[in-house]
């Protein structure tokens, strides 16, 4: 399939590629957005979950009598009450089954695990009652494991008695060619790189409202994937899917945390059904920090084989994911596989042997966070390159140049099977270097007279898998998406898609796409997303898939619609179908000055005036398209490889930092981004994704870190006072540039851009600070790069010297 964008564009003022203003803005700007917490239904009850204060314990008893005696308390439910609810499915065969119940039955495995639900007439009373239930709970504490080492120690306490150990999975492919590389290489070194525990942290916490009327359960959930929530509720509550409607109203960000289907998505609908009254649960922030998934908690043990000239011959990497308790649906296991699949970034490097291990601990379950394993891998690769450059006296930039994929190498198959069909891997790096030169000059001159400040540069060349398969992640769902396009009798267009709008601007983008494909103005297009009753089945917004899935599904549906409309118009024009063209909303005979037929005339004929239809034509003007990308694979092939993403965007991040040696303070002076997500639908939206992604990446590189007490596995964080989210004072200005390398086998060449921004900063900041402090031999191996960490690194390097090769 060759790319033929123009044949699908039927508007002379093309909207694709323009920063069409967002239609999502007005509600939030004027205070008239409608988030889950804004929904109020007459007679609605408030639900508060009671959560474990122990990291690992048996629940001996729960005394609910005092809570039930309170005025305004309607009910207190525990696991026994939900006996008729099915267990969350364990769909993935190769990971340890956790058999998760919506409410914990008898054994809690992390602080924050929900084991009771209090229902009251208002939130204040429900909170009071929940405190009484908590006080009435008797635990029998069990020994805890707070980290990977504790969990894997011989004789370690097990989270799941029916498992052999706390290891959930261990996938260890063997590559003889890597063994060979190690034998041939001049040198080797080993190192351990650590990525710390963080979370997506949308400003809107999670929430669920449920109401059952006339046998239909309606659920408003702050989810990124309404159809998946519907299927899971129907399964677990044993209801027919058509009797479950899931809506996401305005969503206050997701960043992956809202892709999971949580206990509350099941418990609150169950309560509404049981009590016959609407029920609402809104997560508070302190709950959110322990009860919404964490991420990025990985450790990478690497062996690197390299030559005197800096050539990296082979790498063995054991990537180990701390899954927390693992009690989350879908499981949080996939990111570490993505880490290994993407670890070689934009580099031509096949001699990678990557082992993937998942381990459970007594911490909040790990799951998805924007980036989904990619930043962790990029960090490892870039730190390896810098280390080899330093050990061999090779220039860091030249070494990267030597390794980066060149245009003639594409399509290129990565070590794990990822297929880089196109991209600007070398070009982005070169462009970013050009942008860096003046920034570096500025920083050097700014601190020329300050001997306490050192300036450094850090690099990251990454790839971003877009529109991935969900099969390896969920063990169940695939990776396509549907859209329905309809033209009404008045000529107005309605697009409904299974995609979600969680802040990115997908509603605006869908309108742009349909406008160009149908030759109308975006203002004539109504877009419906995030409602299982009004939109066809889709998997929602995650995995940088919105742009490509909307493009593919809207295009398929639009082409079918135009075909039918053209036949109707040809009949009305008394012309041959082949002679009729659609331009700017008018069907006319090519090259003729005969009057044209409008969408309204065609729509009226199709729905109302059947007398204007060709003989035998089925009335109606609504078509659907289910898009499944050509190259997307859902299962490993015979060689253990998989291209689990429909396309791969790419980019380069470079940061210039200053480091105050005496205090360890790091300041990002300039942050340069060159990225390439194929054809751009709306440049402003893409830039917004990059800005926000980079800010989250910087949060991980320098600030955010969930820490646990090693002896008790108790969280050492409870609020924003402990979990440091960057403000505008911490996020530096960013300079952006773009390449557009269209994906050759995707409709319009669109790839996707949601996650790439998060990928670079950890590698960039650690690389830049290490560069700035190279005279002390500092070579950072983990984030966050805090002042404390910088000072510790200076002291340690000063006494031990640089990590030397063998």
């Amino acid at each position, binding site marked *: 399939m060759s790319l033929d964008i123009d044949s699908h564009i039927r508007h002379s003022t093309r909207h694709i590629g323009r920063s069409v203003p967002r239609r999502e*803005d007005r509600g939030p700007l004027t205070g008239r957005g409608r988030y889950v917490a804004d929904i109020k239904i007459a007679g609605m009850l408030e639900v508060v979950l009671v959560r474990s204060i122990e990291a690992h314990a048996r629940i001996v008893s729960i005394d609910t009598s005092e809570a039930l005696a309170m005025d305004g308390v309607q009910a207190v439910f525990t696991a026994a009450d939900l006996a008729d609810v099915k267990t969350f499915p364990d769909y993935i065969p190769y990971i340890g089954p956790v058999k998760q119940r919506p409410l914990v039955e008898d054994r809690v495995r992390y602080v924050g695990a929900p084991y009771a639900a209090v229902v009251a007439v208002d*939130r204040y009373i429900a909170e009071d009652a929940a405190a009484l239930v908590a006080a009435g709970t008797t635990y029998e504490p069990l020994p805890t494991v707070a980290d990977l080492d504790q969990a894997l120690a011989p004789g370690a306490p097990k989270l799941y008695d029916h498992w052999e150990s706390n290891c959930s999975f261990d996938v260890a492919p063997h590559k003889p060619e890597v063994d060979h590389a190690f034998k041939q290489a001049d040198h080797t070194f080993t190192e351990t790189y650590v990525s710390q525990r963080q979370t997506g942290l*949308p400003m*809107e916490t999670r929430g669920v409202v449920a109401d059952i009327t006339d046998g239909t359960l309606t659920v408003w959930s702050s989810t990124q994937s309404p159809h998946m929530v519907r299927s899971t509720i129907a399964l677990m509550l044993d209801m027919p899917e058509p009797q479950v409607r899931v809506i996401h109203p305005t969503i206050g960000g997701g960043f992956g945390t809202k892709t999971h289907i949580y206990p509350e998505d099941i418990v609150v609908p169950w309560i509404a059904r049981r009590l016959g009254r609407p029920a609402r649960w809104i997560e508070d922030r302190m709950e959110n920090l322990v009860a919404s998934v964490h991420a990025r908690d990985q450790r990478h043990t690497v062996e690197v084989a390299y030559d005197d000239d800096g050539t990296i011959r082979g790498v063995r990497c054991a990537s180990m994911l701390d899954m927390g308790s693992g009690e989350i649906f879908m499981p949080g296991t996939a990111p570490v596989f993505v880490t290994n699949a993407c670890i070689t970034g934009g580099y031509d490097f096949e001699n990678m042997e990557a082992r993937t291990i998942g381990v459970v601990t007594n911490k909040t379950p790990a799951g998805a966070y924007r980036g989904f394993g990619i930043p962790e891998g990029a960090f490892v690769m870039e730190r390896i390159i810098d280390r080899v450059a330093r050990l061999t006296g090779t220039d860091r930039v030249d070494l990267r140049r030597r390794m980066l994929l060149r245009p003639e190498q594409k399509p290129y198959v990565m070590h794990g099977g990822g297929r880089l069909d196109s991209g600007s891997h070398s070009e982005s790096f070169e462009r970013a270097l050009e942008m860096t030169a003046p920034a570096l000059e500025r920083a050097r001159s700014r601190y020329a007279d300050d001997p306490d400040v050192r300036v450094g540069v850090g690099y990251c060349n990454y790839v971003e898998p877009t529109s991935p398969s969900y099969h390896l992640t969920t063990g169940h769902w695939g990776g396509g998406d549907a859209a329905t396009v309809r033209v009404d009798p008045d000529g107005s267009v309605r697009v409904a898609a299974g995609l979600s709008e969680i802040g990115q601007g997908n509603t605006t983008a869908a309108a742009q796409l349909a406008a160009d494909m149908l030759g109308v103005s975006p203002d004539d297009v109504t877009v419906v997303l995030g409602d299982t009753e009004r939109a066809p089945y889709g998997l929602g917004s995650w995995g940088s898939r919105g742009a490509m899935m909307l493009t593919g599904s809207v295009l398929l549906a639009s082409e079918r619609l135009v075909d039918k409309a053209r036949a109707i118009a040809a009949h009305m024009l008394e012309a041959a179908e082949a002679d009729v063209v659609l331009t700017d909303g008018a069907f006319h005979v090519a090259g003729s000055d005969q009057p044209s037929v409008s969408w309204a005339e065609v729509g009226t004929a199709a729905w109302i005036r059947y007398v204007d239809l060709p003989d035998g034509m089925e009335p109606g003007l609504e078509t659907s398209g289910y898009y499944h990308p050509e190259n997307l694979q859902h299962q490993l092939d015979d060689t253990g490889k998989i291209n689990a993403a429909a396309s791969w965007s790419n980019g380069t991040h470079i940061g210039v930092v200053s480091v105050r040696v005496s205090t360890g303070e790091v300041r990002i002076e300039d942050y340069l981004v060159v990225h390439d997500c194929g054809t751009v639908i709306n440049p402003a939206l893409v830039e917004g994704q990059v800005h*926000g992604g980079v800010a989250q990446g910087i949060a991980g590189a320098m600030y955010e870190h969930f820490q646990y007490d090693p002896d008790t596995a108790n969280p050492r964080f409870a609020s*924003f006072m402990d979990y440091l989210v960057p403000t505008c*004072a911490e*996020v530096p*200005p960013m300079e952006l540039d773009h390449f557009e390398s269209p994906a050759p086998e995707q409709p319009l060449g669109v790839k996707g851009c949601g996650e790439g921004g998060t990928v670079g900063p950890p590698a960039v900041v650690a690389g830049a600070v290490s560069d700035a402090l190279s005279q002390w031999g500092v070579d950072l191996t983990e984030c966050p790069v805090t002042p404390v960490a910088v000072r510790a690194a200076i002291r340690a390097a000063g006494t031990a010297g640089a990590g030397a090769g063998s």
Partner: protein
Amino acid sequence: MTISEPISEVDVEVTVNGQPQRHRVPARLLLSDYIRDTVGLTGTHLGCEHGYCGACTVIVDGDAVRSCLMLAAQVDGAEVRTVEDLAPAGADSLSPMQQAFHDNHALQCGFCTAGFLMTLESVDPTEWNEPERVVELLSGNLCRCTGYQNIVTAVTEAWSAYDGSGGSDDG
């Protein structure tokens, strides 16, 4: 804490967005919940309920406050303004700052936006329109989507008419 005692109630008379309100509310009712649930203005959002994120910022007697850190009882006799009060009433238009946010893609999910707008509304632009001052002013509001750059740009643009000498008054 003795939570089984009867909850005392208080009378609150307050002007919200120019409209007089009179309610008998629980003494412990937060101002944020009063605005959202009692008065019914849900444009004020709760991002943390511990006074850190700034999403719930409203204006009480001219000052920006975090409504999750005040009790409804404390605004008795006060004038409260919320995000719903910013756009010209009845019109389809936006305030200059709202428009600048829209024009500069300064919001994505929009959950934090009301807090930013109310923080900005509470100050005299002539004292805050230098870029460093804008950053200082906004550093009490968390945004997770935008990376802040477009927000700062929007504010700078909306306040570009202010030259620091109080020359303009249409902000």
